[in-house]
């Protein structure tokens, strides 16, 4: 009753052209991230020429030390954003986790236990967000906004005064400065356990995303959740897990930040979720999910950190302009991404 068109057997479907294109396309996908790297390097060069003393041990060390918490947060958010979700609660989670941690440590709890507990508080908020998102179909924005409110509110109920970690608390050891290279005066190459923790987090995250089924499922969900589900991937578990990962890393960031400052406060971390999201986006991850790299997010965090340094170095930028500059830089990055995406669609 029906005849389908016969494809001439030898007329192979343009394979050679396709394989060429396929070799090109991954590059297009990495382009936003590469652009972030290029712009970062550009900023370094500009800073060195315009203000000096950017390419030196101490500045670079401090860039890493001061932003290790942001790198950890951005890594966590990369997971969530790759699935097409978002986590607004991380900043507030840092506040509650560090407050509880410092209060318990000062109450004489074992510091090891305290640190684990701080991380677990993050996990708990992550689980709560994940359950709301996954089992009750609450949109990620709303679920994590609720967790942000909850964490911030609980933190304010716990204490509104800064809680100071005892001077001899072992938690502070995480920010011990190790001089790797002892330069003249304070120009030393320094690292702290915190920086190493952040580096470890990045490496593990990279491995998980690119070399485990969990990671592939994260990308698949970002591509099409419906498809991932019908392909038989563990969507439920994975979606829950990304929020747990994000929450846990927020807990870890709380440990890192607390050890660095030695204090905890209910108002710590206001707006950091937006910094972390900005870092992820600058790093080339699409907010709609499915495309991006964790290393990009690290670069994104460093771009933001370096931008603050450059603004400080300049010293004459009026305060009202700083947010405009941040917005402008973000705009440049997303326009760039947009260009890449539309270029890709055309090929």
């Amino acid at each position, binding site marked *: 009753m029906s005849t389908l068109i016969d494809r001439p057997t030898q007329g192979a479907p343009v394979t050679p052209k396709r394989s060429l294109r396929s070799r090109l396309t991954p590059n297009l996908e990495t382009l936003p991230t590469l652009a972030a790297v290029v712009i970062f390097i550009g900023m370094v060069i500009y800073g060195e020429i315009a203000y000096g003393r950017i390419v030196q041990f101490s500045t670079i060390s401090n860039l890493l030390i001061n932003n290790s918490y942001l790198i950890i947060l951005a890594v966590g958010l990369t997971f969530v954003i790759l699935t097409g979700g978002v986590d607004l609660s991380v900043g507030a989670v840092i506040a509650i986790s560090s407050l509880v941690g410092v209060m318990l440590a000062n109450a004489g709890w074992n510091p090891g236990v305290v640190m684990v507990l701080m991380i677990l508080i993050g996990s708990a908020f992550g689980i709560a967000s994940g359950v709301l998102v996954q089992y009750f179909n609450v*949109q990620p924005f709303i679920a994590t906004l609720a967790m942000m409110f909850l964490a911030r509110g609980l933190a304010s109920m716990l204490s509104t005064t800064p809680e100071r970690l005892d001077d001899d608390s072992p938690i502070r050891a995480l920010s011990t400065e190790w001089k790797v290279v002892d330069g003249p005066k304070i120009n030393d190459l320094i690292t702290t356990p915190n920086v190493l923790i952040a580096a470890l987090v990045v490496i593990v995250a990279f491995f998980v995303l690119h070399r485990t089924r969990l990671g592939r499922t994260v990308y698949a969900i970002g591509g099409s959740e419906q498809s991932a589900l019908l392909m038989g991937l563990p969507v439920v578990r994975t979606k829950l897990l990304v929020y747990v990962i994000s929450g846990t890393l927020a807990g870890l960031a709380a440990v890192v930040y607390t050890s660095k400052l030695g204090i905890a406060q209910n108002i710590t971390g206001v707006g950091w979720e937006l910094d972390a999201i900005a870092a992820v986006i600058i790093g080339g991850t699409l907010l709609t999910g499915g495309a991006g790299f964790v290393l990009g997010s690290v670069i994104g965090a460093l771009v933001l950190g370096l931008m603050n340094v450059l603004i400080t170095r300049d010293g004459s930028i009026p305060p009202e302009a700083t947010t405009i500059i941040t917005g402008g830089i973000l705009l440049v990055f997303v326009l760039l991404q947009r260009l890449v995406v539309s270029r890709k669609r055309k090929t």
Partner: protein
Amino acid sequence: MSAASPAPASGPGSASGPSSARRIVGAVIHQPYIWAIVALLLLLIINLVKDPSYLGVSVNATTGNLSGNVIDILRASAPIMMIAIGMTLVIATRGIDLSVGSVMAVSGAVSMEFMNNSGGGDAGTAIMAAALALGISAVLGTVNGVLVSVVGLQPFITTLITMLAGRGLAKVITSGQNTSATNEPFRWLANGTVFGFPVIFVIGAVIVAIVAILVRRTALGLMIESIGINPRAARMAGIRPIGILISVYIVSAVLAGIAGIFSTASVMTVEVAKTGLNAEMDAILAVVIGGTSLAGGKFSLTGSVIGALLIATLDKTIVFLSIPSSATPAFKAIVIVVICLLQSQRVRALFARRRSRTTPSAPVPTRKETVSA
């Protein structure tokens, strides 16, 4: 209370006769915002327990205006209502507008700066100031709309950028200063009364009604929903998405501008770092509490109005009960979580199953919807 916005399903004209009241009640019970109404009533009851005269409205002897907690709530809800209505339309197109708080600050800054410089205290100056403020708000809305629809940027990131830049702009306008002005007609907008009712609420209600008529009595609502549900299909069906998207972001920004005028007029000062701070969160909450999904598509203006009232009531209740206001977020969190849970398929299925023990009814199949941020 919110008679201004007709329920999407049943137009006022079609309902008549004695059974219509019952039908409306029946329709409301099946609306997603029913839980917001319940929560609102609960809050009022809690307040009544603390102070039995809570709902009392009296005529203030010195000022001759109506005064009472309810009046305060209406007044406080007006700005939230404005941004929530705009946000509802934006969200219905699958977008989000994070910039409303900053637009409030810009609008406030423009009007205060204008009145402060022109020095005139008359109604003309007030109108000029408001017009200027709304004009600049519309420009910001256009920027959002063009970036989203023509350039094709994601709404979240686009409006995050305007949120950052907008706050900066407000500071530039006033050179970083909190600026005050004196202008009686302008002040009257937020603090005056007509027939004893707060002007601010009356204006708010009228604007809600206008927007509701604009989207529900024309085909705009249908088109907005189509774009929100399936933008590609909507375009193929002949709808012009660019025009509609730009208008929606402009409407949202202009309504935010009005909210900015409301909140600065109430103290006749713009506080560049504070005015409208986190207002976008309140607006989004109001929309979600009102039953509009962040995934876009079907929307309910009535729901958002109720959501705005709930948030204003919650804010006021916290203070009324002498709970430190820094704990307010925690209570908001609880309200959102509970309402979202009650609205969720899973919980509703649970209710349905319980009911089906007495009457045989359809168990709800587990159906996953694709959720987008």
